[in-house]
């Protein structure tokens, strides 16, 4: 199964990537751990996670072709 990951704002800035597609990731917790292994700077970052554009507050099972977004603190306006 494929999961699309999007990184925004300073997260894209510090990792150097804004879109990644990963395979065989079960849930958001394991996805984040794997991302933090690849991009250690993410361990010090504050962000919330949106799965298919809805912000989640607990570990969430992922489905094929879903989109997971890592959102740093908002600063619009």
């Amino acid at each position: 199964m494929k999961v699309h990951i999007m990184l925004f704002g300073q997260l894209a800035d510090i990792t150097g990537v804004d879109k990644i597609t990963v395979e065989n990731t079960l849930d958001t917790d394991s996805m984040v751990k794997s991302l933090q292994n690849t991009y250690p700077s993410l361990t010090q970052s504050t962000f919330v996670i949106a799965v298919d554009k809805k912000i989640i507050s607990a570990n969430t099972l992922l489905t094929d072709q879903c989109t997971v977004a890592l959102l740093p603190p908002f600063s619009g306006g």
Partner: protein
Amino acid sequence: MTEKKIKNIFIAGPVTADFIGKSIQNHSSKKDIGGHSIFLGQIRADKIDGKEVAAIEYTCYEEMANEKMHEIREAIFAKYNLTCMHVYHSLGKVATGEISLFVFTSSKHRKAAINACEELVENIKSSLPIWGKELFTNETYQWKENK
């Protein structure tokens, strides 16, 4: 189609005073409006550790932001007796002194427009996935955080 169309609130670059004037003018034909409330966010030349902000560069998660704004809009229309509601936010670079946010509510009696406008501004700041990068005059930058 049973669902209302999701509007795009984003515009490239600053919201111009001319655009705001024209938006106001467009409401002169709506003769049940008694009060308009408008909020404008303008870019400040803040000084941070000796560096001065020259502009803010905005990016967003556009699809999610517009969907979330749609939810906010529906909730505000359900809560307040409004005639109209318009929201515009800049993307890309907006220089100091320029406007990056334009929130415009109208109602028969003033209270609904005033209260809805204030609530919208708070919701936009806290809930929309938008990020501002403060570009300093010396070419460095930092990521903004809303208080």
